[in-house]
């Protein structure tokens, strides 16, 4: 197990280096990056001054090393539109994004498992048919459109849920105001319902299919037949023997799932004017505020990498086969 952890850590470090290279090269790919930081009406002297100030006149490898140095210190430079350190702005929006991502994820998983089980144990019936049809649809609906439709129906027409805004929970919690945080919680969740559904539906659909097919496979295994022939009640076979193994593939994809969810969050936040990193990125994209875009993208990518690492290490603990074999290949 130790060898696996070590290998997995090395892999993460290589990936982090790759991410820094990619984010660095992204700036260089369109030619001289200085033009991304100056206004279109800048004079030649101004451009030259900016190039020197930003360090784009240095050799590429020197630029890369100083980029990595800044990155380690969390310094992405000043946001062009806010005139404040880009990282500080992004960090301020982070708790809202984490709340939305976690909410979507919990919702997706807590619904996917019962739905997948329902479909698998009723294979071929109309239950199965409805669940698989729903899952197929869920994987085909653009999340931002789902958001717009829910705003139309549940927000503007039925007026059940708020169509924009956010009530902070993590921010007061982190500031030590526990009572305030939990006082906010009901309203936080109320505001998360529509955006959460919009973000999470794709994951819900995918995981439902995954749970269904993985449970169907496990139900064919010898040990399930053995358990049944021992005369164990079907419930016990299902929950004690089958499900335990059926949900391992789901755990594997949880890490990757965060990636999908983060991608969805970026777009859906814009639809709901939800004050997280996504909406910030949207504004930064439209104002071509490069430092802000970079800070947001690198922070989200960093979180994604760390989460994936954690999930993979947890997986080793969950699957006894891996503990013995020293990790998967």
């Amino acid at each position: 197990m130790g060898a696996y952890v070590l290998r997995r850590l090395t892999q993460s470090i290589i990936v982090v280096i790759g991410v820094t290279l990619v984010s660095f090269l992204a700036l260089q790919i369109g030619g001289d990056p200085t033009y991304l930081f100056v206004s279109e009406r800048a004079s030649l002297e101004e451009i030259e001054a900016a190039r020197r100030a930003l360090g784009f006149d240095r050799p590429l490898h020197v630029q890369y090393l100083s980029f990595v140095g800044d990155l380690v210190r969390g310094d992405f430079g000043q946001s062009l539109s806010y005139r404040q350190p880009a990282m500080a702005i992004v960090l301020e929006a982070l708790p809202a994004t984490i709340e939305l991502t976690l909410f979507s994820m919990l919702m997706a998983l807590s619904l996917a498992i019962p739905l997948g089980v329902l479909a698998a144990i009723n294979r071929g019936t109309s239950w199965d048919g409805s669940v698989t049809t729903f899952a197929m649809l869920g994987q085909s609906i653009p999340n931002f459109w789902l958001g717009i439709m829910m705003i139309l129906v549940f927000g503007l027409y039925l007026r059940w849920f708020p169509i924009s805004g956010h009530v902070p929970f993590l921010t007061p919690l982190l500031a030590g105001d526990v009572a305030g945080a939990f006082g906010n919680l009901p309203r936080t969740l109320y505001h998360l319902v529509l955006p959460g559904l919009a973000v999470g539906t794709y994951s819900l659909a995918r995981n439902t299919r995954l749970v269904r097919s993985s449970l169907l496979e496990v139900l064919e295994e010898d040990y399930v037949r053995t358990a049944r022939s021992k005369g164990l009640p079907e419930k016990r076979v299902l929950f004690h023997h089958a499900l335990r193994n059926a949900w391992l593939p789901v755990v594997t994809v949880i890490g990757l799932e965060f990636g999908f969810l983060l991608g969805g969050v970026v777009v859906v936040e814009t639809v709901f004017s939800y004050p997280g990193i996504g909406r910030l990125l949207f504004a930064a994209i439209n104002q071509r505020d490069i430092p802000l875009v970079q800070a947001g993208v690198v922070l989200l990518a960093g979180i994604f990498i760390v989460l994936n690492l954690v999930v993979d290490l947890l997986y080793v603990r969950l699957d006894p086969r891996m503990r013995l074999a020293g990790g998967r290949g």
Partner: protein
Amino acid sequence: MSRPADALLVAPRESGFRREVRRAARVMVDARWPVFAVIFLGLTALAAVFGPLLAPFDPNRQNLVLRLAEPMAAGPDGGVFWLGSDALGRDVLTRLLYGARISLTVGIAAISVGGTIGIVAGLLAGYFGGWVDDVVMRLGDIQLAFPFILLAIMFLVVLGSGVWNLVLVLGIGQWVTYARIVRADTLSLREKEFVEAARALGDSTPSIIFRTILPNILAPLTVIASFNVASVILSEAALSFLGLGVPPSVPTWGSMLAESRDTLVANTWWLAVFPGVAIMLTVLSFNILGDWLRDFLDPRLRERT
């Protein structure tokens, strides 16, 4: 002239092409939905190709007097806004037809780019192994460790909008899937008798890789490609929605949805409903088609997609 040993070069593929086609059709009709998917995609393709001929209006023709007209309302010159008009008085149906063009072009072009890169990389990695394999697979790991939409955002912000930038970025986003599958298949085929036979006949390495191995691993890739077109179309719509797709003068389903938000509180539902339905049905059709292809080709592929 065919060499006697050429018979050996043919992998154990199933014989009887017509029988296969009949089986494909039967599986399709039995499943029912794939038939609708094919019909819908056919119509979308027609819209994409003949859009300008079918469209009742010019997609960018503004008409400020007739803006936000409801579906079926009278348009200019005795025409009808079948699906309503937008905030600038442009015909929604016309823009929808033009949007089909971008979605399908970008979807298929991006898959061609990503598929080509991935197939070549996977063939080389699987056939040569060693450091080639290591480099290709580690590059793939790095890319998958990065949420794709973030990567796309970063590159498109710097590169600027444009159909081909979009195709390039979305295509590069897909190569890893192909490379992994092709690599695994190449690894197992490399040792098979018909490849050995080609080697013994003195065929060059490129010929073995591209003429002997490649044709035998293409089938499962069509399944992946079908699912991939679906996800690329979703990504394209999302990026267009964020303002990172094609230039604003070109109508796309994603940018139509972005514009629909401005007047949503005025209950201009038709601006939001129709482009979304178009995206959903197109993506759904590709997904259904992928499912059908998978069931037809090899049910065991389920685990890999």
